[in-house]
């Protein structure tokens, strides 16, 4: 046991470090979702069960039914005193409604007490206990517990266990409820892990939500923390909150109960941390705003939100740490631009404290810092290839266009150089997109090149006509030069018409027309070749051969006559006649087989004929043998 324990401890430590980054909730209920949930519950009551779902569901969400008096009247008129289920729905509903009372007769009480026994199903016990508790009637908790435990061991399914949890939450704490409390752990083990993100029962979201509500209700009642780990709770939340549309009232009810229990219980309070708008700051918008709420999107204004650290995503250098967010109304704010960060992406680690029950209260957020780019030191020049003439340089300022045009031909290249800086900080920038686009005004051709920075972060582009012939298809003419600068962190992408460039390619390579490569013309048709029939000889030839093949038969008959085949011993004994007839019939059968029959039919007839022929032939040959 010793080394095993140590191994287990080491393994769990490893898991702890590996799982140090807790799972972040991927689904939550926004205000719109909650409104939809409430609307789903506010349907007019179809029956008593629907009324129960609506009334109790809405109360879990902290809302009330629109007309409580009408609801109370509905319950009173629809309750069926002979049905335990009906009494349960009524009892639990009036518990929530204010000023609604139903008198319970002795018979009803006896009925309910009798239902709490080992012979009723778990659902019956649950409803009976719930009804008794809702009506405020006394109940023997220990006996109820015994009946429940006995019944539960017979009904092993998930829904029955969940109902047992609910039932136990109505029983007095003096009864030993630990056996039922242990069922929570067993149920957690039965949850299915879907991709590490969701945790739900195979019975569905409704069952999962009912489980969450029941588990917390019982845990609060008994005073023991439910045996669920933080990651499991978050995965359960993801599964339950992934359902946004509720067709069935029971689904809406279960989700409402789960939401209600997760937003107020004694042990676990999941925190939802979401940026308010995009997680981006810039000089115009220097403040990062966060919404910190519970699962019902209610702001946790009592919490203290702190930035643990902010690291640059590229260089991993910590830019800011241990700074608190300030509360402004319902939003937590932090002015990140105060530390003058360079543009780019930053990894923020944020933690929310203030209540021991908080879970999912540490998150990682990717924040973008944007800036504006400025182009400076833009120099356009024509460089002589022979290096004999000094390059002529013209400086242009953005957004003006250079006056005059520049020429690039076989003697000289065209060159462009510029620098990109952060307007606010003056630092040099290397954006993702730095393109030089040349657009032929006459033919509509455009060619795009990438301008590369050198070691000093000065961007350079050079156009050599002999090198770039193929990109241009050797089409000479006047091209408009554009500079395109773009990046995710730039607020002002640039498309700048810098100058006009006349490009002259050597004449012999110029194509007569610009060929457009059109892919969508009809292709040549494929002719299908049918299988050619085999060559056969002409009918004359095959008919001649057929006649020819019969000639040996003629020869045979002649030869037999010559030899003197002995047919004189032909006596008309029945066996001889039968034999010859049978044999002839068999040969005839062969012909019929060739023209009409299949093998099975032929074999059948052959068996019959063959049998007859055999018997007759046997007799005949035996007689012949005797004669001899």
């Amino acid at each position: 046991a010793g080394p095993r324990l140590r191994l287990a401890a080491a393994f769990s430590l490893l898991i702890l470090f590996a799982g140090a980054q807790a799972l972040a909730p991927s689904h939550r209920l926004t205000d719109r979702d909650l409104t939809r949930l409430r609307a789903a519950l506010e349907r007019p009551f179809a029956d008593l069960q629907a009324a129960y779902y609506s009334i109790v569901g809405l109360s879990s969400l902290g809302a009330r039914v629109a007309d409580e008096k009408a609801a109370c009247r509905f319950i009173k008129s629809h309750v069926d005193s002979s049905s335990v289920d009906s009494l349960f729905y009524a009892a639990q509903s009036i518990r929530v409604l204010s000023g609604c009372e139903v008198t319970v007769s002795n018979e009803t009480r006896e009925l309910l007490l009798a239902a709490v026994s080992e012979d009723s199903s778990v659902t019956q016990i649950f409803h009976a206990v719930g009804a008794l508790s809702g009506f405020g009637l006394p109940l023997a908790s220990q006996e109820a517990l015994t009946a429940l435990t006995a019944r539960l061991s017979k009904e092993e399914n998930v829904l029955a266990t969940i109902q047992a949890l609910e039932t136990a939450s109505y029983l007095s704490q003096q009864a030993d409820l630990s056996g039922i409390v242990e069922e929570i752990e067993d149920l957690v083990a039965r949850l299915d892990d879907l991709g590490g993100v969701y945790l739900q029962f195979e019975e569905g979201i409704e069952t999962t939500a009912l489980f969450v509500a029941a588990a917390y209700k019982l845990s609060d009642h008994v005073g023991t923390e439910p045996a669920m780990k933080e990651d499991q709770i978050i995965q359960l939340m993801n599964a339950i909150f992934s359902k946004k549309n509720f067709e069935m009232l029971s689904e809406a009810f279960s989700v409402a109960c789960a939401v209600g229990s997760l937003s107020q219980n004694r042990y676990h309070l999941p925190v939802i941390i979401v940026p308010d708008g995009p997680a981006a700051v810039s000089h115009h918008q220097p403040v990062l705003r966060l919404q910190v709420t519970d699962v019902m999107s209610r702001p946790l204004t009592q919490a203290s939100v702190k930035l643990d650290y902010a690291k640059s995503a590229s260089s991993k250098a910590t830019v800011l740490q241990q700074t608190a967010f300030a509360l402004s109304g319902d939003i937590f704010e932090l002015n990140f631009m105060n530390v003058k960060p360079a543009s780019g992406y930053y990894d923020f680690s944020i933690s929310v404290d203030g209540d021991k029950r908080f879970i999912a209260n540490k998150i990682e957020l990717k924040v973008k810092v944007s800036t504006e780019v400025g182009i400076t030191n833009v120099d356009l020049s024509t460089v002589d290839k022979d290096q004999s003439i000094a390059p002529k340089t013209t400086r242009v300022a953005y957004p003006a266009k250079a006056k005059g045009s520049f020429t690039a031909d076989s003697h000289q290249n065209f060159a462009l150089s510029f620098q990109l800086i952060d307007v606010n900080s003056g630092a040099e920038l290397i954006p993702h997109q730095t393109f030089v686009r040349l657009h032929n005004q006459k033919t509509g051709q455009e060619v795009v090149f990438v301008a590369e920075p050198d070691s000093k972060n000065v961007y350079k582009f050079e156009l050599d006509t002999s090198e770039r012939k193929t990109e241009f298809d050797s089409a000479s003419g006047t091209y408009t030069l554009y500079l395109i600068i773009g990046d995710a962190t730039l607020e002002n992408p640039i498309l700048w018409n810098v100058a006009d460039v006349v490009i002259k390619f050597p004449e012999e390579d110029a194509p007569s027309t610009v060929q457009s490569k059109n892919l969508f013309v009809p292709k040549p048709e494929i002719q299908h070749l049918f299988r050619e029939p085999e060559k056969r000889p002409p009918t004359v030839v095959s008919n001649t051969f057929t006649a020819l093949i019969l000639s040996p038969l003629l020869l045979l008959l002649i030869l037999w006559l010559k030899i003197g085949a002995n047919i004189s011993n032909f006596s008309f004994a029945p066996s001889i006649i039968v034999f010859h007839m049978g044999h002839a019939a068999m040969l005839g059968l062969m012909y019929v087989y060739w023209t009409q029959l299949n093998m099975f039919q032929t074999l059948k007839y052959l068996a019959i004929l063959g049998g007859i022929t055999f018997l007759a032939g046997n007799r005949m040959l035996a007689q012949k043998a005797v004669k001899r």
Partner: protein
Amino acid sequence: AGAVGSVVRRFLAEYGSGTPSRLKVLDAYLLYVLLTGALQFGYCLGVGTFPFNSFLSGFISAVGSFILGVCLRIQINPQNKGEFQGISPERAFADFLFATTILHLVVINFVG
């Protein structure tokens, strides 16, 4: 040429006198089958093998019949009586008929 001719004449004379008529009847049948098979083969060489299954079935029929005929001839030849103690000529003939029936069944199945 003369030597071959005299051998052939001698053979024919011996054959004509020394062979029972029953065997001669069988030999005529064998000759007939042989000619039929040869004609079929020649035709196939001439006009081609389409349809091949028909040619095969006809040719195999000729070949098979020839073989069965030869077997029958051996079995009923009185000179071979010593080697076929338990098989009377009638029995040999019955076997011949039976085998020929099966051959015909297969051939008709294949001729198409």
